[in-house]
């Protein structure tokens, strides 16, 4: 017994060979499936030097795609933040019939293919859709225009903020709010002074995840966009078009920019985690 105890002291003390093997496997997998493809994107982007890269990114259609992507992400993230906070608040602070149905519905966009999400909006707002003809008669364009792209992006990113907030708020319970209530705080005061400070890190984390997905969404947006260059092309769609035009350097230049935006989002997220520092 006493002979074994020093080794037992480290619960995970595997033999060094096993440790290196596991670590090596994990690192190899990361290198092979993550770093290598990412490296290829940047290598292809600069395959013909800086000038070609700059040309690909500075093209008016590329700039329009970057603007549109940022616009769509800004709108859908802010709307989803409001929705996510409201939904999480409702689900965790109140009991009402149909609560479990609501929680399941929030997850729906995770399980529905983005292509179907896009088609739903075509069926609703298309020229032969349910309400499309009425909207078109009144001069409102939804499908094949920016509103449709925003709607489709909102659909696929809907769960992100709520999904981050619900567990946090459930864990925190209702104690703080009930205490504030007994001290005479109003509903808004409770929300801004008690609830929001408690969940701000979770909310920001959800916002960043939501943003990453909103910028990168392809399937749903592809269905509703109509692919009008300089008008309804987001960055992922623009990359596909460039690739199809044999314009590989420009395609990968825009792709590397998109990857860079995702990396920045990821870095912000890690920074927040360190700051929120449990």
């Amino acid at each position, binding site marked *: 017994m006493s002979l074994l105890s020093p080794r037992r002291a480290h619960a995970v003390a595997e033999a060094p060979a096993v440790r290196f093997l596991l670590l090596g496997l994990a690192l190899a997998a990361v290198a092979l499936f993550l770093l290598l493809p990412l490296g290829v994107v940047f290598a292809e982007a600069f395959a013909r030097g800086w000038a070609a890269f700059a040309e690909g990114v500075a093209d008016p259609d590329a700039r329009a795609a970057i603007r549109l992507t940022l*616009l769509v992400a800004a*709108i859908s993230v802010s709307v989803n933040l409001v929705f996510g906070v409201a939904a999480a608040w409702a689900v965790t602070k109140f009991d009402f019939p149909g609560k479990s149905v609501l929680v399941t519905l929030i997850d729906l966009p995770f399980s529905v293919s983005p292509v179907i999400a896009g088609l739903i909006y075509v069926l609703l707002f298309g*020229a032969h859709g349910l309400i499309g003809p009425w909207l078109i008669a009144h001069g409102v364009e939804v499908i094949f225009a920016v509103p449709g792209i925003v709607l489709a992006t909102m659909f696929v990113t809907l769960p992100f903020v709520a999904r981050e907030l619900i567990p946090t708020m459930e864990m925190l319970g209702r104690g703080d709010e009930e205490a504030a209530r007994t001290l005479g705080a109003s509903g808004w005061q409770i929300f801004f002074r008690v609830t929001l400070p408690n969940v701000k890190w979770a909310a920001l984390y959800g916002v960043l995840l939501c943003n990453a997905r909103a910028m990168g969404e392809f399937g749903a947006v592809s269905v509703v966009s109509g692919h*009008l260059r300089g008008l309804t092309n987001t960055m992922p769609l623009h990359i596909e078009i460039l690739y199809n035009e*044999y314009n590989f350097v420009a395609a990968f230049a825009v792709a590397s920019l998109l990857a860079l935006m995702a990396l920045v989002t990821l870095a912000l997220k890690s920074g927040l985690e360190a700051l929120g520092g449990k």
Partner: protein
Amino acid sequence: MKLARLGLAAVLVALSCAVARADTALLNVSYDPTREFYRDFNAAFAQAWKAESGETVQVRMSHGGSGRQSRSVIDGLEADVVTLALGYDIDAIADIRGALPADWQTRLPNESSPYTSTIVFLVRKGNPKAIRDWGDLAKPGIGVVTPNPKTSGGARWNFLAAWAWAEDAFGRDEAKVRAYMTALFKNVPVLDTGARGSTTTFVKRGIGDVLLAWENEAHLALRELGPDAFEIVAPSMSILAQPPVAVVDANVDKHGTRKAAQAYLDFLYAPEGQRLAARHYYRPIHPEHAAKDDVARFPELRLVTLKDRFGDWRATQKRFFDDGGIFDQIFATR
């Protein structure tokens, strides 16, 4: 709050961009391989239109598989003009949405096709599998790349060209023609949705021994991706592919762009349009306006026409490509 303000600012910027546009904006909804041609053509037209009317015109493009593009216009994509791969895709816009009259194809010369093309083979350099004609495609061990006739216009021309060759080769014995087509499609490893997707599959991913391609697409792939790696084979006969163009009446009337849209299509028939079409490997209907070197690139081929061999597109579509049609039957038994 900050986020909301940022969002608002972004919306305003987007709106101001939308306002600061040209006098007239046209949307041309086209099919896959016309990208490079219309980029040049749009610039030439904008110049000509400025000189003629004093107006600045901006032409926007949307490209994709012809059938899918047609579907988008039916669903409300606001095309002022459509320039698609075959007549049926514009018939569908007329029939389902009623956005243009059923006899649209009689409104412009040459059945509304300002340029034509045909189907040729693209093979790997040196033609290692010795693919010379349609019969070689059905031999065992040959990988044939073609897009899906359900979504791609070019693929429907491919299918009809092979069918027409087989009809001649087997004395119009339909059982033998079907057996040949079944053997051919047994050799197809992957059906992409559009012509450009198939080219990428063949050229970039290195799949298959022969690509059935639009003549213009084959030349373009050769120029862009490797004259040292591929070569074009012209079969003994092929089909005259007529990609038609049309003004979408409902949309131009709504946008007030009929005059510019009509001029845009007329310019395709003008000497400058014909010259550009030939430069981008489309066969001009007035070769006298094109550069001699450009025209010399088109081999003399025996070309059958859809009208002589199959009738009109509505009937052809129903017989071959609608659900349960000959393509479905062949594809199910392969």
